[in-house]
């Protein structure tokens, strides 16, 4: 690597590299495929990003305080199954039910993590298994297509307002709420403090365990919301609806510049990261890359992003 790149200070790299990457990628795809830059295509891009962004936003809260949530894709799939099974009977209540189940699952993961002192990746990996199997059992291993009547309840997801897809508005509302939570509340500040220096946060009187549980609740809750939105867009619920979304979600968080070790990050960065992932995905489609090969790229991107952003002076030993 040339010397001047090494001299670039890591912090400004983490700050600006994601945005620069996004602009470059959009320009690049636009040059090869001018139709990509049409407003309608860009709106489609934003709509396609929304679910990934909601999923990634939830897990951002956990990553900020130095943990990880591996159960988000199972949670999203389960939420889609719950909606598909109950929307005929409960109407809008099915969405509330799905998100409430997310909150309970997050609470369970969080409590297992802080009370039993189980590493977060184990607690949420186990939770992921529980949720995935629940989705399989409840759906009798089938994909459940929403009936014509049920779809009436989905217009808040599938409709448009003055030509703007509702799903983009949902993504925007999530952005605003999550951004305020992360940057303007005590929870957000404590999360950053715990991620950057847990012993000091604890010694300063921060109720560390409580903040952690909040983060897991948010993560699973947002994952359930993502599942609800996905079910609406695809007009179906399935135990594998959100399969293959865990890797892109975590890649989105890290590519955006949130440190996988915690302490540094923001929801804005996750938005940029999610957009990058979507542009790469669409770009690959344009280039004719097999859709099933995409996670090869995201896996490589994740490793690359962590390698660039990780601060080795802070963590001499990585396990």
């Amino acid at each position, binding site marked *: 690597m040339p010397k001047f790149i090494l001299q670039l200070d890591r912090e400004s790299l983490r700050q600006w590299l994601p945005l620069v990457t996004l602009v470059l990628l959009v320009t690049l795809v636009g040059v090869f495929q001018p139709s990509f830059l049409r407003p309608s295509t860009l709106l489609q891009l934003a709509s396609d990003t929304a679910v990934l962004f909601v999923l990634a936003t939830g897990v951002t809260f956990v990553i900020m305080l130095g943990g990880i949530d591996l159960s988000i894709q199972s949670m999203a799939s389960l939420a889609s199954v719950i909606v598909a099974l109950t929307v005929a009977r409960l109407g809008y209540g099915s969405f509330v039910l799905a998100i409430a189940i997310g909150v309970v699952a997050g609470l369970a993961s969080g409590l297992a993590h802080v009370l039993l002192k189980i590493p977060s990746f184990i607690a949420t990996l186990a939770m992921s298994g529980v949720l995935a199997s629940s989705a399989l059992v409840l759906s009798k291993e089938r994909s459940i297509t929403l009936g014509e009547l049920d779809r009436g309840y989905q217009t808040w997801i599938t409709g448009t307002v003055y030509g703007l897809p509702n799903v983009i508005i949902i993504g925007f509302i999530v952005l605003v709420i999550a951004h305020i939570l992360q940057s303007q*509340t*005590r929870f957000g*500040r404590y999360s950053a*403090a715990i991620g950057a220096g847990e*012993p*000091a946060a604890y*010694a300063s009187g921060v109720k560390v365990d409580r903040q952690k549980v909040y983060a897991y609740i948010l993560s699973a809750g947002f994952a359930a919301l993502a599942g609800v939105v996905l079910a609406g867009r695809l007009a179906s619920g399935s135990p594998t609806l959100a399969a293959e979304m865990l890797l892109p979600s975590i890649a989105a968080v890290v590519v955006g510049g949130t440190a996988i070790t915690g*302490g*540094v990050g923001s929801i804005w960065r996750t938005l940029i990261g999610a957009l990058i992932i979507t542009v790469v995905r669409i770009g690959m489609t344009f280039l004719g890359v097999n859709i099933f090969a995409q996670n090869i790229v995201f896996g490589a991107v994740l490793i690359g992003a962590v390698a660039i952003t990780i601060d080795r002076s802070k963590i001499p030993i990585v396990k």
Partner: protein
Amino acid sequence: MSTPSAEPVLALVGVDKRFPGVHALKNVSIEIGRGEVVGLIGENGAGKSTLMKILSGVYQPDSGEIRIAGQPTTLANAADANGKGIGMVFQEQSLLTNLTVGENIYLGNEAQFTRYGVIDWRALYAAAARQLEKVEVNVDPRMRSDYLSFAARQMVELAKALTLEEHAAGHLVILLDEPTSVLERAEIDVLFARVRSLKSRASFIFVSHRLDEVLELSDRIYVMKDGAVVADLKTADANVTKLHQVMVGRSLQTEYYREPLQKPFREEVVLESEGLSFGHAYQDVSFNLRAGEILGIAGVIGSGREELTRTLSGFTPHDAGRLLISGREVRLTSPAEAVDFGIGYIPRERRVEGLVLFLPVAANITLADLASLTSYGLIDSRQERKLAATWVERLNVRTPSINTLCLNLSGGNQQKVVLAKWLNAKARILILDHPTRGLDVGAKEEVYELVRAVTTEGVAVILTSDTLEETIGLSHSLLVMRDGRITHRTAANPGSKPRQIDLIQHMV
């Protein structure tokens, strides 16, 4: 012992080392002769640890030279230092307790017993047994090291260091870093006897806080102060008093600890401890702390004073006795609870427990009291910046801005941020756990001045300190602890402060 004609086995020439905000070693030159035991003493922060880390390859000097047998060399890392004949016996014992004694002795050097990737355990344990014979300790090399006493572990570490004889070029130099801190007197005698008998095999650098032991074991003594070597004394010419004087570098100045600023404390009792006990750590501790009082607790490692401060700051609740804060009985089960009762903890591990290094100055200052900045769930960030700027100015924190990460501040300024955090949280009781550790003289004086200022406003302070001098100089009242119990109480009013020797007799 070392005569000018004899080539020193190991020498440092004009070594300098700086860390952000601290000049840790200033033009340090030392030399160690063949078969010599050299003592190295100094207060905490004098630069001993940095010097040892340079000799063991952990740090590289900024300038100056390391010479082995007269030849300039570098010590790139611990393995390199080992290869060049420098062994270490650490203060915090470095044996892995889940491995056997033999495995520990040859940890990282198993290659000599390995054929086709498989270790010949019989050969390894036989060799380990021979190493243990060198230090004359009767331990089965196949025993797991957590079954050993501390004294036996120390001997095993020594045996481990001596394995360097087999593959290091040249004469051995073994660094003994506070090897006696956890040993009983009889065990110390054995250790010293071994060191003396090993002088034919190796030279030693002996670092210790216990001046009498340094005098007992060393041939020659280097005294460090504020990063420089200030004296090189033959043991025959030294005694405890003299060493202490050189080490402290000044006759006790009342000015240094701002004694003229020591105001009488108030009547109001803010904290009462009645027969407070915790396991084997401390028992039956009773005292009163009044508003504006600085209560110093003196004691050696193992006296229980460290555990007592951890209880008072909420980390480990007491299991017997009563603790009253402002007349209300409490049992503190977390620092969060202690903070709610107006207690602020200023830890010795400033960079771990004191500050979130990767957060800005402002966020650290407000961390313990964000609640008062929050309305309708949102932090008022304008108010926060204003508050942080006020504290930075009041405490004269030298920082480029309130948005600077605490990581980039010097030790003294970091400590001021910790203090600002608790003052901002309106703490009524401050627990100062070695508050000036690692600070240079100027920064120390600023901390003393601030502590005086807050007590004048009625804040009560419990102080444990690295040096007796600091404890005595700052405190209104003194407790001495030994083996978990209070052995002595005395007032320490300006002009009639007790002497160190008055306290030492109750400490050991």
